[in-house]
């Protein structure tokens, strides 16, 4: 136990030394808090319209201005953060659960099971998933949960490969052999011995998956195939901003800025985490 905790405490120490990663983490924490408490923090409800006002530039009443329907942009960005971050976390969790179980089972079983399972992953890799997600959204309607699932179902492939590689390298180590000799059940083996040891790479890949997932969601929303109004994600806000950017450029700039800063924060944090957990890769 003391050994594993020192690995993590080393990693955390290294992480804290990495300024970009710390800055990323701070931004993320602030964003998550803002998103979670959006109903209390946001100055207006997200669908509240003030048609008399129309699109107005940033002012003291509306810090980031209002859109063409007179809706407060700051409030919509805060509520949009809920959707965008939720998509990021839920879809990544879906990917995590499928990918980790698939990888552990394939790697630990070995032999025929392994080669069949990994061949399936190879085949799925070759498929044009973005197009399939669009197809699913067209056929089954623009359902939020379907979106989460569809995106998650796409992103697990790399996770499965990473986990399998880790399990393969663990499988023949003495502590696993010892546990096998003592007759530990398969489930206990996963839980007690394999899972804790693959946590590092999995955590790294998960943090780097979140921005990809968020990009995918906003891409779909931008095309009009994702979140539907009056709900807003950052993708739909950017889409609305593009439509009226000639007259009201703030409608594009503020959502775009928020989204970009978030992606930066996630990428910096993920890179920092990778370097902290695996000092070999950082140069």
């Amino acid at each position, binding site marked *: 136990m003391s050994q594993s905790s020192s690995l993590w405490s080393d990693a955390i120490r290294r992480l804290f030394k990495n300024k970009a990663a710390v800055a990323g983490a701070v931004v993320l924490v602030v964003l998550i808090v803002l998103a979670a408490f959006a109903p209390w923090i946001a100055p207006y409800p997200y669908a509240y319209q003030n048609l008399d006002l129309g699109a107005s530039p940033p002012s003291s009443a509306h810090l980031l201005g209002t859109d063409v329907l007179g809706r407060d942009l700051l409030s919509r960005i805060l509520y949009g953060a809920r959707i965008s971050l939720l998509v990021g976390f839920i879809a990544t969790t879906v990917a995590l659960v499928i990918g980790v179980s698939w990888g552990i089972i394939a790697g630990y079983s070995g032999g025929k099971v392994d080669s069949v399972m990994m061949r399936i992953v*190879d*085949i799925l890799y*070759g*498929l*044009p998933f*973005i*197009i*399939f997600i*669009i*197809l*699913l*959204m*067209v*056929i*089954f309607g623009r359902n939020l949960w379907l979106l989460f699932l569809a995106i998650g179902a796409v992103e697990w492939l790399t996770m499965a490969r990473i986990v399998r590689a880790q399990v393969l390298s663990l499988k023949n180590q003495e502590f696993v052999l010892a546990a096998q000799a003592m007759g530990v059940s398969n489930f206990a083996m996963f839980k007690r011995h394999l899972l804790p040891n693959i946590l590092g790479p999995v955590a790294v890949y998960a943090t780097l998956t979140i*921005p990809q997932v968020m*990009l995918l969601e*906003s*891409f779909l929303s*931008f*095309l*009009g*195939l994702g979140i539907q109004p009056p709900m807003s994600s950052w*993708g739909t806000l*950017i*889409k609305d*901003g*593009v439509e009226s*950017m*000639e007259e009201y*450029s703030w409608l*594009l700039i503020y959502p*775009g800025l928020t*989204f*970009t800063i978030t*992606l*930066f924060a996630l*990428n910096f944090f993920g890179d920092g985490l990778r370097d902290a957990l695996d000092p070999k890769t950082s*140069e």
Partner: protein
Amino acid sequence: MLGIFLRRILLAIPVLIAVASITFFLVRLAPGGPFDADKAVSEQVLKNLNEAYNLNAPLSEQYFDYMSGILVGDFGPSFRFPGRSVTELIMTGLPVTFELAIYSMLIALFIGILSGVTAALKRNTFLDYIPMSIAMIGICVPTFLLGPLLVLIFGINLELLPVSGWGQLPGDKILPSLTLGFAYAAYIARLSRGGMLEILNQDFIRTARAKGLSEKMVVIKHAMQGGLIPVVSFLGPAVAGLLAGSFVVETIFQIPGLGRFYVEAAFNRDYTMILGTTIFFSFMIVFFNLLSDIVALWLNPRSRDT
């Protein structure tokens, strides 16, 4: 070596059949028929339409008809553009998208490799930091944000370049190609920097230097061949991203390419068009993945001997 190629090609065939079949049945799962969208048509008309498009035949028969049609490049008629076939529509949009993709890729390769290789050679100097910071921006700013921003700056504020279109006004191809190419330039810069750094530390580079080759020769002739393998492997999967990017870029800049046709078909629920383009895109993606795998294998001397 040849064995690996053959296995790859053989593996691609079931993938393609699976893609075509899954897409075919998914589209059939869609609620509602292809003709009951905006205007209600009389029962007789509907019957005739179904008759004309052979939709009353058993599903298995339709499936085999469709699959054998694909083999000869026939994706069936478009439901929304009567009298035009999906193949015809694809062929109208393809050259435009292809041209856009080529320009973007050329921009991406030129900027990406140049800055990546420079960054690796001048490691930890400002020639490394600046391009790599810009690359980080390129990765974090999505295409659908970059495009409108470029339009806002160069099209609307500075009035230097046209804001939309393709081949109608001079210079209207610049912004779309830049928008689509920029993200790839960023990825390629990172990949080529990483690949070059790895290669430059190896013994054969030291040998090349020791035997008195000029630095230029060492870099161009010895280091780049191996250092750029990650870039080549990236190009195949990049085609998939390029297609997705073309959906966005062609929508933003109102370019009459395949990407915009696809998005419009998705909105209009033009099922045969979606079906046809999806299968067509899949074929392209599988093909380019295969191609880049083969080129990467061929470039890598370690795998060449086996």
